Each structure stands twice: as C-alpha cells, then as structure tokens.
C-alpha cells in the first residue's frame, strides 16, 4: 500500500518559537495513525499544516498526493477535518448541518439527500433529524461531527482530540466508527489524550517539544521502552519535555 501522507523536515516557527521542529513521517493508506503528544507539544499546529490551514515555515510534504506548500486547495477537497473544539453549528438542526457541509464540499443535492438518510439510519439518529445540535448529548454530537467530517468520502480524515470529555462507553462506540471508516479505506489521522485509545491505533507517533521522538506500532513501542502499557511509554517520553505550556 502507498503512503497518503509523506512529510519531510516539516517546520513551523512563530517568531523565535519553533512550534513544530523538522518532523518527518509517512502514513499509509487505510491506516489508523495515532498522533500523540502532551499539550503544547505542537500537534495541532502540525495538523493545521497538513490540512492546508497554515503554511509551513520549512520542509516539504504531500497529503493525498498533493504538495502541502503549493496545492493546499486540492488537499482540502480530499480530506475531512474535525477540530479540537466542536466542529458543528449548535444553532442548526442535525439535517441542516449535514446539508451545509455537503454543500460546502460541492456534493449534488440528490446525493446529499440520499446520504443523509443513509447516515441517520446507520447512526440510529432518524428521530433526531430535526433536533437542534445544541440539545444533543456530547457523545452524540461527536459521533455526528465525525460522520459529517467523512460525509464527502475523503481519502484522509484528521481528528483532533475527538473524544475529549466523552464518557468511556461512548468512546468505545466512537472508535468503532473509526474502525468502520478505516475499513472503507479512509485513512484516519487521530490525536488523543487517552493512552488506551493509542493502543487501538495501527501506528503511533509521540511528539515532544515540537519533535517526533518515537514512531512505531504500539506493541513495538512498548517493547523498545520496556513498558507494560502505552501510558508508561508516553509518560517516560513526555517527562523529557523542557517546554513549559
């Protein structure tokens, strides 16, 4: 399988501060790639560069086959993005949110209607079609936000801490949705705070102070660092951080 994300020496500086420091990695097609790091390690900045939201200060890379320095518009057509904060409009109804993003990604009217029905059925959400998003429970909101992020069948979906604040049972359901998406061929690039979730990923990278300090399968990482769990691996690496949040 080919790589859908290839990044070399990717760097982002804000004045004297180097938020992302020459990171290089590949993500394979259909993979679930865990992008870990403590708060302030530079994860969100890295994701924003990959999504074409912010321009890199240095380095090269391709996302979904397009150059991140020159073809950010093309990249945007081929990815989905779920931000750290809530990505949907609270004062719009469930169907209106779906319709809006379908429209933004240029899907035909008829297709939006069909896919909306299909989606609501799959999520068992039909009764909530006309509900204002703000009155949904947080876990449901996140499931809906994820479904909207992959509504246009992107090659890659970027999830920035999608399960923050969600209860464990709901987190399980959310990860089942991630597996489903990966099975359909969508590459999943996910950041998380929960180390148990890191175990669900095919491969995991750990960012410390803007650099990638480790990148491998969870199993390999545990072996290399001689640790019983990902939590231990993470704590050991994160402890080396010098950056103050």
């Amino acid at each position, binding site marked *: 399988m080919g790589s859908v994300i290839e990044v070399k020496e990717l760097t982002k500086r*804000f004045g004297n501060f180097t938020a992302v420091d020459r990171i290089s990695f590949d993500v394979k097609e259909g993979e679930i790639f865990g992008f870990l790091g403590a708060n302030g390690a530079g994860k969100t*900045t890295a994701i*924003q560069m990959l*999504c*074409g*939201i*912010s321009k890199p200060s240095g380095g090269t890379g391709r996302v979904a086959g397009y150059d991140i320095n020159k073809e950010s*518009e093309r990249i*945007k*057509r081929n*990815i989905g*993005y*779920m*931000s*750290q*904060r*809530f*990505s*949907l*409009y*609270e*004062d*719009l109804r469930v169907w*209106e949110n779906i*319709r*809006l*993003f*379908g*429209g*933004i*990604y*240029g899907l035909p009217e008829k297709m939006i209607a069909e896919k909306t029905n299909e989606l609501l059925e799959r999520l068992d959400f039909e009764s909530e079609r006309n509900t204002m998003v703000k009155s949904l429970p947080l876990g449901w909101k996140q499931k809906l936000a994820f479904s909207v992020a992959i509504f246009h069948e992107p090659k890659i979906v*970027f999830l920035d801490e999608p399960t923050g604040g969600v209860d464990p049972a709901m987190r399980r359901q959310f990860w089942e949705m991630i597996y489903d998406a990966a099975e359909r061929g969508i590459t999943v690039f996910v950041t998380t705070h929960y180390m148990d979730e890191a175990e669900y990923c095919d491969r995991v990278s750990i960012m410390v102070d803007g650099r990638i300090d480790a990148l491998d399968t969870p199993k390999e990482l545990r072996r290399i660092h001689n640790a019983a769990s990902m939590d231990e691996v993470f704590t050991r690496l994160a402890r080396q951080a010098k950056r103050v949040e």
Partner: protein
Amino acid sequence: MKQFIAFVNKEFRHIFRDRRTMLIILGIPVVQILLFGFAINTEVKDLHVALYAPSPNSFINGVTERLYQSEYFTYRAELDDPIKMEESMRKGKLDMMVLFDSKGEAVQLIINSSDPNRGSIAATYATAIIAGYQQELAGMRKMPFQIEVENRMIYNPEMKSAYMFVPGIMGLVLMLICTMMTSVSIVREKERGTMEVLLASPLKQGTMVFAKTVPYLAISLVNFASILLLSYYVLKVPIQGSLWTLTLISILYIFLSLAFGLLISTLMRNQINAVIISAILVMLPGLLLSGMIFPIENMPQILQWLSHIVPARWYIDIVRKVMIQGLGWAVIWRETTILVGMSLLLVGSSILNIKSRLE
C-alpha cells in the same frame, strides 16, 4: 455557487434563530429615528417672551399687542425689567426678550438659543411679526420712524436646520448596526471552533466573506426602508431627489459598513471586544467627524483631513444632496467613487485577514 448558497442559508438561519438580536437590530433604527424626530420637532409653540420698554409709545403698544395675540408666544408681563429677564432666561424659563431703546425707536431681540431650533424659530416669528406690523403702519402712512430689527443669538451662535439631522441619523444608525452585526460573525466562528473546519474545507475565503454579507444586507434594507418611511411620514422630511439614487447609494454604504464589521471581526479575539470596538470606531467619528452635528468647514484643518476617512461623512453629504436638495449623480459622483473605493479596500482586507488570529 452551490457552496455560496449553502453558506448563505446557514447565515440566514443563524440570524433568524436569534430572535432577541433580531428584534434589537430591527428596533434600533425605529427608536433612534423617533427619538431624534421628537428632539427636532419643528412645530414650536408656547415661546415665553418678555418685553422691556422704558418709554412706551403707540408703536410699542402695537408690537406688544401683536406678540400677545400670536399663538406662538406667551407674554410674560411680570418680567418687566432687564435684570429679572436675564435671570429668568438663564434659568431657561424665558425664550426671548424684546428690548426697546429709551426713545422707543429701535428694538433688539435677545433669543435663548441654547436650543437652536427653538431659538431660531422664535427669532423668525418675532421678526416677521414686527416687520408685518411695520408694513401695516407704512400702508396706513402712520409710520413714525424706520424700525431696525436686530437679532442676536446668544448661547449658541451656530444655528442648524432640522432637516440636516435625518441624513445624519441615517449615516450613523445604518453604519452602527451593520458594523456591529457583522463584527461578531467571524469572531463567533473562531470562538466556537467552526472557523478551523471551514478553513480546512474547500470553501474559498472570498465566498465566505460575500456569503456573510448577504443576509445582513437584506436586514439592513429593511432598516433603511423603516428609517425612510418614518422620516417621510412621521418627521415629514421630503425626499426631493430620486428614491432610486438614494437606495442605490444606501446599498453601497450598507455594504461598506458590513465589510468594515467583517474586517474588525477578523482582527478581534472575542465577540465582546468586537462589539465594543465597532461601536467606538463608528460612533465617535460618526458623531464628531461626519458633519452630522458639527460642520466640517468649521473644524481645524487637521480634523478636516481626518474626516476624509470617515465613510459616514461622504454618505451624509450624498443623502443631503439627494434627499434634501434634490440633486442627482452629476454632483455626487465624487463622493460615490470614494465610497466604492473604501468598500473595495475593506472587503479586500477582510478576505486577506480572515485567517489571522487562528494560529
């Protein structure tokens, strides 16, 4: 285009679901125009007038009688010497003193123009009454001497016409509401986190900016119509020039104000800041430098230059020319060009700036 329509729909929903804000937005112009309208009510009655005549004669008695008969004046006989009159005027209980000289041959009107409209109207009425009486006497060949009427405006020598206010209110209220409405709209998306999602989507920044102006433009046209209707039917301010020209110029001005709000929105971090900054940036220059209240020609040179960058100045100027003076494109093309230029500058900057403060 599909993107554009989807986005415009979304913006309309945001607005219509926020009933309270909607009510405020549509209510402000009505309240403002009515408040200003009654403040500039031109129908002045019950003006308090006192008369001082050291040596009464038949002419003075005639004038007194006519002032007394006039429905506009209330004659205050008890104030019979200048000291009492002045004190009473200072307290605001007297609108006009009529002073005859010791020979009873010259008359001076001293008018309390702390309220300029009231003052100028009192002066006009009194002058007309005295002049009318003189003509009457001249016709009867009983004219004992030529009376000179001399007006002196005290407390506020700068007299303003009531009609001058309506264009001013239009310039101020339209811009204030438009700017405040859009100033929160981008900040809100940043605060809630939806902006990142939009920026990661194929939606062009220009599309976003234009789509955000459409619903507000529609609402502002409703506001424009209500201001115009109220000023026409309630304040009786005529529309001398072309209604189409006025509407077209107002759409341009509304668009400019919306773009200004969007620019503020791209620069601010939260909604409260955005509202406060836009209120200050619109209200202060709008009131002080637009010529709405203070004539620009009387300002120091540096403030006159500064007034050139205040859009309301140009708009108010145009509205006065079109609405009050009934002039057309031939005399407003320069101001219009300036407004077009300002709009383009503002839209361009907000498109370029939309990403800022995200990183």
